[in-house]
């Protein structure tokens, strides 16, 4: 099957990715403007993005007695100072507003008798989030003048004179190519998983922390068009329940379980409890021969045991199945933990587009929200919603001033689009190529694991290894040109691989660019095992004449607003 038709569509605002941030961007745009909106979603918005299985807490909320500034201080501590404070504070100021909105839409939040939300620690509130994504999706589907195109895979932006004019893609089911012209684009495609060899590399290869369907599309499209990126070297490595890769926060924060080694010694006090230190301690204890490591749960009550089985069903049901299948549970045995492979994800660490305070990228009229946007870690669900809101409000404001701006080519401009896609589709009778997408994906993951600080090297790397990684990723990238697949459905896999390889190049450049070890495990640079004040800047990058240029940018502090200076 080949792609034989291209459709031209027009909209005021194109939202690429109908996940957490994208959906909230649409809700905000419709609430405050009459701009036409189109959402291009790779899957179906009902369960797409990071929230497919649900969540059981909102991890970013300003609880009673705390302030937005307290949350920013937490972000700064956890990210060891590499935070855009303008982005952090503007996000924090919106956290409680979007939470109230979610509750209005139908999200169940646990309350005290006086009507306030029940806090879980200093920043979290407890919810039933099993159906959080259907709640958001239903709200978006009920809006007027919003076109949702499900199963439309966006593969490239249309950019002229550093200004976004829309995007192109293809539809998984119909095999029709699309050229979508838009005045503004919000990119909300999430982060990138699958760069490194995962914890379960075989049959359960996709049983990973982050959505395996978030493949760095947004990053890759921006990188290719010269958008500036920031802090890719702050990789995210999650501390998870072993094998099921289910969350540990529910146990650590929910029932106060401590991290213990195989001798029963509490080790978290030895290494610290920032996000990266919790992983680092676990890695070190294993190296020192004190593994396996656990969360100590055997001291919980029967009621807590039963509640935990339910809590996991609302977000990671495989963990509950695992307990029941083995006839155990958290009360019967401690929960074994491990670090995951590294991810690039701007909702947890600070990797992503370099945006101004309004979340506009360095490509004009292209806004980034959620995991794809950099500079602002610990966004989690509510922070992603706020960024969707900020981007939407900024677009509305800009449109008021630039209302006459027109981008309405009547005819298709991208005439080579079908050829671009069809080069990867087998013709009838054509032999299958030697290497499959899976082969190359596995090869990429092996390279990153071995030479760019994956699980097998305890997240450590050297300059020489990173240089080798860059060579090998380039080799694999050349092989992609020979790949061909039988169905349009599988064309998605080709583009996902290409996206990941582009992200790998930039990631390697960033790892080389930060000559220190600022966050143990997230970046464990053996040539520079310490951190110093010389590292108190952002490591940014952009593609110039086909080469990745690494830049240093000074820290943006609270009270400042950051605006791009286009040169």
């Amino acid at each position, binding site marked *: 099957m080949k792609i034989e038709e291209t459709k031209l569509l027009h909209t005021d605002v194109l939202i690429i990715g109908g996940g957490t941030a994208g959906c909230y961007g649409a809700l905000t745009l419709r609430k405050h403007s009459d701009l036409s909106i189109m959402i291009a979603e*790779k*899957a*179906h918005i*009902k*369960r*797409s*993005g990071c929230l*497919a*299985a649900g969540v*059981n*807490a909102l991890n970013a909320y300003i609880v009673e007695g705390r302030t937005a500034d307290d949350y920013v201080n937490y972000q700064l501590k956890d990210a060891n100072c590499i935070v855009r404070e303008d982005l952090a504070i503007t996000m924090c100021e919106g956290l409680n507003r979007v939470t109230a909105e979610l509750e209005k839409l139908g999200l*169940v*939040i*646990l309350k005290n008798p006086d009507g306030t939300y*029940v806090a*879980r620690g200093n920043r979290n509130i*407890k*919810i*039933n*989030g*099993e*159906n959080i994504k259907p709640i958001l999706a239903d709200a978006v589907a009920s809006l007027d003048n919003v076109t949702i195109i*499900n*199963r439309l895979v966006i593969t490239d932006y249309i950019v002229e004179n550093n200004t976004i004019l829309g995007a192109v893609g293809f539809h*998984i089911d119909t095999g029709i190519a699309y050229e979508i012209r838009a005045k503004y684009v919000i990119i909300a495609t999430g982060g990138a998983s699958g760069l490194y060899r995962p914890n*379960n590399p*075989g*049959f*359960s*290869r*996709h*049983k*990973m922390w982050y*959505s*395996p*369907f978030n493949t760095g599309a947004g990053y890759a499209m921006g990188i290719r068009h010269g958008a500036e990126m920031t802090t890719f070297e702050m990789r995210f490595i999650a501390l998870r329940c072993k*094998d*099921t890769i289910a969350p540990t926060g*529910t146990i650590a*924060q*929910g*029932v106060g379980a401590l991290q213990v080694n195989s001798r029963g010694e509490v080790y978290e006090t030895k290494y610290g409890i920032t996000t990266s230190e919790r992983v680092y301690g676990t890695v070190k204890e294993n190296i020192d021969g004190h593994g396996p490591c656990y969360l100590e749960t055997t001291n919980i009550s029967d009621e*807590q045991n039963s*509640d*935990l*089985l*339910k*809590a996991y*069903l*609302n977000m990671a*049901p*495989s963990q*509950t*199945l*695992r307990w*029941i*299948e*083995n006839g155990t549970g958290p009360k019967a045995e401690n929960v074994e933990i491990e670090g995951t492979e590294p991810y690039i994800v701007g909702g947890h660490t600070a990797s992503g587009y370099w945006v101004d305070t309004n979340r506009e990228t360095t490509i004009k009229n292209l806004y980034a929200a959620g995991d794809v946007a950099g500079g602002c870690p610990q966004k989690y669900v509510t922070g992603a919603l706020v960024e969707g809101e900020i981007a939407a409000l900024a677009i509305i404001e800009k449109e008021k001033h630039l209302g006459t701006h027109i981008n309405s080519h009547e005819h298709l401009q991208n005439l080579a689009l079908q050829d671009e896609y069809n080069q990867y589709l087998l013709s009838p009778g054509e032999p299958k190529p030697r290497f499959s997408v899976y082969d190359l994906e596995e090869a990429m993951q092996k390279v990153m694991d071995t030479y760019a600080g994956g699980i097998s090297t305890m997240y450590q790397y050297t300059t020489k290894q990173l240089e080798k990684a860059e060579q090998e990723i380039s080799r694999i990238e050349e092989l992609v040109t020979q790949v061909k697949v039988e169905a349009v*459905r599988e064309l*998605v896999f080709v583009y996902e691989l290409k996206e990941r390889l582009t992200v790998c190049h930039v990631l390697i450049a960033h790892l080389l660019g930060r000559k220190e070890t600022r966050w143990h495990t997230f970046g464990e640079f053996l040539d520079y095992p310490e951190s110093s004040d010389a590292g108190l800047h952002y490591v940014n990058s952009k593609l110039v004449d086909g080469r990745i240029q690494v830049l240093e940018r000074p820290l943006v502090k609270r009270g400042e607003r950051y605006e791009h200076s286009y040169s």
Partner: protein
Amino acid sequence: MSIAIHKDKCIGCKRCSIVCPGSLIVIDDDKKARIAYPRDCWGCVSCVKECPVSAIDFYLGADMGGRGSTMTVSSEDSYLHWHIQKYDGTTQTITIDRRESNQY
């Protein structure tokens, strides 16, 4: 980690195929659903919840410590019933009221 779709129970409503966040489920010529890429399953169980006739179960791969037990889900008003069929033949059901929050 993956799912199995039981053709004998499938009524061809396509809801699983629509909702899968990885677009991994296809509808065959016999109008029945099939997971075309079982190794690509994230284990989010969206399809399991969506199926109106409990024709889809999920299980843990052997590499995740699985022993062959399966899980299906049925909905009734605001309740989700999680049915576990254990490998030793025993069964267990956990019911969750969507109107009630998690405690942790």
